[in-house]
């Protein structure tokens, strides 16, 4: 078949966009679970869950869409990442299942509510940590033989991935707390104002550690960043600037700005990570082109994605529009 378009590049764009959407959107509702044990009281917990209840599973849509797209467009990623992260994948799924079920049943529970609160919290924490560890494992790279993973079952679990795991947990908690600033008022909002700077400093500390450590884990990253001044330095600079905005907005007790700026931190760090690794999708050996599926398979599915992504986006925006504004004691009105 004649290859008119660089479909591999288009698919890299789609998957990259999907992952970003997932991280930003599921991030703030996973964050609610991470913050759950520290919430001031049971009423605050109700409010926290209510604030994300209408949107959380739409948020997870992006994970499933991205996963399915990966198998179709970049099968090598699927067949190396999943075996390499075998235990981590199990923890991620188990975590997501537990918190998903907690969402459903905590609302329907009277006497067993505390059980579902715990399930929500532990599930969210485990899933977030596992995702962070995946990021770390991606930076580390994978041991491969031919087109298969050849490392051990726990190669992904290193001090570095534990660091990125906790980093993402703190990051999601920050997205969660700034989301609460935007969506709640009164005592819960005040509490969120109080914890946001602490989470921000925690995140920045992990950031610094990861940034210093990464070039040593991967020498190609080192040369990309330190062989002269390049445009990519703008990305961490912008991330830092966003962090400053968060701090300032919290001080001024602004409503929406902390959340928006936190999303900025995530966006620019994500782009920075991509800039470090591009075009490697299964480091250290395979680029997006090595990992790509056949042209006609990419094309076949692209038609479906071009149809469904606008619908998912429209539906998502509609849901956020319907549930705009502050959440009351009994949910949105």
């Amino acid at each position, binding site marked *: 078949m004649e290859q008119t378009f660089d479909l591999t590049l288009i698919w890299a764009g789609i998957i990259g966009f999907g992952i970003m959407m997932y991280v930003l959107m599921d991030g703030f509702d996973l964050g609610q679970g991470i913050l759950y044990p520290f919430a001031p009281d049971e009423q605050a917990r109700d409010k926290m869950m209510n604030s994300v*209840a209408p949107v959380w599973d739409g948020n997870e*849509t992006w994970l499933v869409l991205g996963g*399915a797209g990966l198998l179709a467009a970049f*099968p090598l990623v699927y067949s190396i990442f999943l075996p390499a992260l075998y235990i981590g994948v*199990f923890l991620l799924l188990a975590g997501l299942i537990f918190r998903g079920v907690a969402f459903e049943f905590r609302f329907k529970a*009277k006497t067993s509510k505390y059980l579902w609160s715990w399930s929500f919290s532990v599930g969210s924490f485990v899933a977030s940590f596992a995702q962070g560890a995946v990021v770390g494992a991606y930076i580390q790279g994978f041991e491969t033989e031919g087109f298969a993973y050849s490392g051990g*079952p726990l190669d992904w679990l290193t001090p570095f991935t534990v660091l990125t795991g906790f980093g993402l947990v703190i990051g999601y908690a920050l997205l969660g707390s700034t989301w609460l600033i935007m969506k709640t008022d009164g005592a819960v909002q005040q509490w969120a104002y109080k914890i946001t700077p602490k989470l921000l400093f925690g995140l920045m500390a992990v950031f610094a550690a990861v940034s210093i450590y990464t070039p040593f884990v991967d020498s190609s990253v080192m040369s990309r960043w330190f062989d002269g001044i390049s445009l990519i330095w703008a990305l961490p600079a912008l991330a830092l600037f966003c962090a400053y905005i968060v701090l300032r907005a919290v001080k001024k007790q602004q409503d929406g700005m902390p959340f928006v700026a936190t999303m900025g931190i995530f966006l620019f760090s994500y782009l920075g990570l991509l800039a470090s690794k591009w075009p490697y999708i299964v480091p250290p050996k395979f680029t997006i082109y090595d990992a790509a599926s056949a042209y006609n398979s990419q094309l076949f599915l692209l038609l479906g*994605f071009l149809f469904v992504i606008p619908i998912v986006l429209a539906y998502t925006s509609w849901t956020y529009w319907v549930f705009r504004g502050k959440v009351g004691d009994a949910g*949105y009105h």
Partner: protein
Amino acid sequence: MELDPLVLSRIQFAFVVCFHAIFPVFTIGLASTIAGFETLYFKTENPIWQRLSKFWIQVFAVVFGIGVVSGIVMSFQFGTNWSNFSYATANFLGPVLSYEVITAFFLEASFLGVLLFGRDKVPQGVHLFAAIMVATGTFISSFWILSANSLLQTPDGLELINGMYHVKSWTDALFTASFGYRFTHMALASFLTAALVVAGVSAWFILQKRELEANKKALSVALWFLLFLAPLQTVVGDFHGLNTMKHQPTKVAAMEGNWETSNGVPLLLFAIPDKEEQTNHFEVKIPKLASFILTHDWNGEVPGLKAVPVEEQPPVFIVFWSFRVMVALGLLMVVFGIWGLIYRRGGKIYTSPVFLQGLRIMSISPFLAVLAGWVVTEAGRAPWLIYGQMTHAEGLTPSLTGGMALFSLIGYITVYALVFSAGIYYLLKVFKGGLEKANAPHEMDEIERPARPFSAGHVAIDGDL
């Protein structure tokens, strides 16, 4: 004992897929049932159909929710435990499985929300349309899944280049030789499942003298479906079997417990197939009947297991007995269909406790039959993952160790035991609440969230009824 990652992975896949399969097979049939109730309500304006629909929509919502969660786990298994297989087949399976996801999301994002939450918010015609679209969507979903499975049974339209299959013809690959039979067989299985569950639950309500008028109507409709669909399924099953004999003769040999390729083969009612000794013990048989069923000729030739080396034979005992369980349950369904027809005289279908209790028990039969059927077709394909081309061992993740596989197997069993027993416990509460609760003001004062099927259930998970 050495832990074998291959055996453990197969057990894990079988466990997860069996657990998953029972939910979609029910929702597919139930979606059509609900569309049927809504159509009847639209045409007759008899509120009874609406009462029924409201109840079964709640059941649908819960079952759909559990099905989606268990399905997600499924899709990750391919990568974690069968990475060589995933990689080799990704050019086909990737897009096909993704299209299934797209179908499901499109449904969730559009018509499901209207069906579950929109009754009072949209015109009745729009609500009916949503119900029909949801029913259609469940079939489109199963189209993709069964197409993928059929390709593994009767591969076609692919070309192997450097260890990776490339799609030569999408039409050939999507519509392989066994696809039509498999799809029809499963579609009927879904309808039968819905018919038997509706019949069983209605019978149970009638025994309790609850909502008699509505439940009698539901029972009557379900029994008509059972009467016609159960015999039809045996005919379709027969055709499916003939198709299998043509393309996967060894599977049929295992189903029949037939070791030597020969003519005038008896039908075995009972036997203990022994793969080690390559023979059966304690046979009870009807002469020549297997030949007649499979070739429609009393002396027709039936393939034997010994036509292939021992290592290419499937686990005969499992296939042989699963097949018998499926057929026996199918015949029992035919019996209940006819029994129902006879008892219609004088309305005994509504009054006979024996018949009603029998139906109540029969409501689990379609699930057992479907699982048995899938065991026949999946275990019957062994040792092949892609028939004649790739074995289970070749498809396994090379880096997988027995310890990892055991860890995840125990893990999934634990997670499922905890989470899905909560789900099924809740489903039973919805059943107990019955039409009365489904049509009463909501017990739980919660916010309705779109795209969340479960929240259509308005019964508390704990506390008294």
